[in-house]
């Protein structure tokens, strides 16, 4: 009896039943979040009729049509014209001709993807760079009106960014920043830098000043001490902050739709506009989305150890 009571109230070890419940909840949550992703992934490999079949098809013959359509533009031709072209030269030529079409050129998906990479990583780098310096300054130096400034920085997150869409649209048109890499990088940096400052300040605050003082006494300048001693210890924080910034900039839709059209358009507003015959080309949309997810997944996996430490920062003392 006593043994049971002890076990029930133990804080260090969970009972078998609570472990099972916790495990089931985690699996349930994973399923809820993974099913849409799995569905997108599968849809990318369906043929257009399969993708809109009702009831939905779980078992289907995989096809690369979605991916081919994603990267190409095509036009419908008469069978006689297709005959006259001779045998298809490549596997994707063949795939397209089965639907009585020929490839007329590449689609703009690749350009949009490159725009996303440049703008996403560019703004992430800039936000983390500025955030690191600002966080260090706020944490270590006597800054006049420090608390007010920090509150002001935080307050920029209190409204949804889209609330300022119209002023920004007008300003950008005046400044010639509409539909440019620079404009989008600046915009996403401005949104992310407040998050970066606050997140990173927490990390810098946790690094004892003694490290820098030791380095300074050992002959290093304040800046060298920052580079050699503080920065390496901020790795986890910087990784976590970079992921958060990248996810925002990568996924941002509303401003991208509003401010970009031709040259600097990112992938999010482009993907839903992929039109096939008779409406949206769902396999191509799904294929575009799948590929769009790859960099974030790659980055998160790459930084997952740092990220885990970063997200739980402050919860456990070293």
């Amino acid at each position, binding site marked *: 009896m006593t043994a049971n009571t002890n076990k029930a109230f133990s804080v260090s070890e969970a009972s078998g039943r609570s472990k099972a419940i916790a495990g089931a909840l985690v699996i349930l949550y994973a399923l809820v979040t993974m099913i849409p992703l799995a569905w997108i992934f599968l849809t990318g490999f369906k043929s257009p009729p399969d993708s809109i079949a009702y009831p939905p098809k779980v078992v289907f013959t995989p096809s690369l049509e979605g991916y081919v359509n994603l990267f190409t533009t095509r036009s419908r031709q008469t069978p006689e014209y297709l005959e006259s072209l001779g045998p298809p030269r490549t596997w994707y030529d063949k795939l397209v001709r089965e639907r009585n079409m020929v490839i007329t050129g590449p689609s703009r998906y690749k350009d949009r993807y490159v725009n996303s990479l440049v703008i996403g990583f560019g703004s992430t780098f800039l936000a983390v760079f500025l955030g690191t310096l600002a966080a260090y300054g706020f944490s270590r130096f006597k800054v006049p009106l420090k608390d007010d400034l920090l509150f002001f920085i935080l307050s920029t997150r209190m409204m949804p960014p889209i609330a300022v869409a119209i002023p920004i649209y007008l300003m950008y048109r005046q400044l010639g920043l509409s539909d440019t890499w620079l404009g989008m990088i600046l915009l996403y940096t401005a949104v992310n830098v407040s998050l970066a400052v606050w997140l990173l300040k927490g990390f810098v605050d946790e690094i*004892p000043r*003694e*490290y820098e*003082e*030791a*380095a*300074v*006494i*050992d*002959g*290093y*300048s304040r800046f*060298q001490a920052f580079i050699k*001693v503080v920065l*390496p*210890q901020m790795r986890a924080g910087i990784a976590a902050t970079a992921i958060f910034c990248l996810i925002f900039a990568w996924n941002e839709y509303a401003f991208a739709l509003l401010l970009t059209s031709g040259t600097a358009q990112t992938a999010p507003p482009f993907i839903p506009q992929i039109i096939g015959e008779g409406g949206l080309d769902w396999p191509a949309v799904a294929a575009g989305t799948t590929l769009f997810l790859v960099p974030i997944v790659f980055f998160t996996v790459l930084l997952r150890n740092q990220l885990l430490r970063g997200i739980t920062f402050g919860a456990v003392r070293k």
Partner: protein
Amino acid sequence: MAEITVQGLKKYFGDFAAVHDSSFRVHDGEFFVMLGPSGCGKTTTLRMIAGLELPSEGRILLDGEDVTWLRAARRDIAFVFQLFALYPHMNVRRNISFPLRMEHVKRAEIRRRVDEVADLLRIGHLLDKPVGGLSSGDRQRVALGRAIIRRAKAFLFDEPLGALDAEFRDLMREELRQLHDRIGATSVYVTHDQIEAMSMADRICVMERGKVLQVGTPMDIYNRPKTRFVAGFIGSPSMNFLPAGGGLPKGAEEIRVNGARLKMPRLREPLDAPEAEIGIRPEHIRLAQDGPLRGRVFAVEYTGASQLVTVDTPAGRLKVRAGNTQRIDEDETVGLTPDPRRIVVFDPRDERALDSGLFGEDGHE
């Protein structure tokens, strides 16, 4: 090797005076301990010597050169922090060699000197380990290694043993003192632990509320405290204080304590206040039936080597250290004889000890 001179040092944090008017001189090669309760300004003083804080007023001389406003990096001083401040992203070797890498010392030379220091501190087997897994004693040794590798002019220690377990502390205390004797560098050591101070120091500087109260050898500080605070702060159990009659002329050799007359060292200055206070250490009181003070035994603590007897006298409660052979019962009435050569007389108005024969025979210390 260097002499450190601190002149009229003051430090204010806003309205709060952390240090006011600190002055002392640390001799070349000396082990100088700054002792005081927490918040007394000892660490702030040390940080000003290091250049980590800038003084509000005053001067700091290092070997005669004014370094008051010199950057910490340019002072050629080594500092050992309380929590060691070992860089967690470097292994032991890189931690120790960190100061040398700044000075662009050649690789082979760095290697040789790290090995030399590691030998001295007996941490050669740890050089390639990360600092994270080290025991606190080993961390302490690595921190020392990083301090001594540069052969700085002076070493500053900020409560370096504070974070160690009790048993390690005894060991490291000995090691530190031996290391100092071997290297012979000027060392300033901050602590609030009087045992550390007494056992390691060549001289002790006692601070309280931002002020230097007394600088002297451990024996001086213990036997000839200059203020009531120093008298009470040093020694465990602490000194007994009893109210006494004032109005003493220069040359007085007796003092009234609750009707009894106690012999004391000859006063070399008069006390015109109507009241005085005397201080006497527990080991300087003898239990004797014919003693001038009498009281009832309140408690007896047997500590092995001796026993500590608490006696309630009409003048006040006294602690007496008695031999461990004597049998003393609670509630017994005993007589007490303070050692007349050991009594310190304080002026209760400013808590200063009056100059007397206690402080040297001919007025010299």
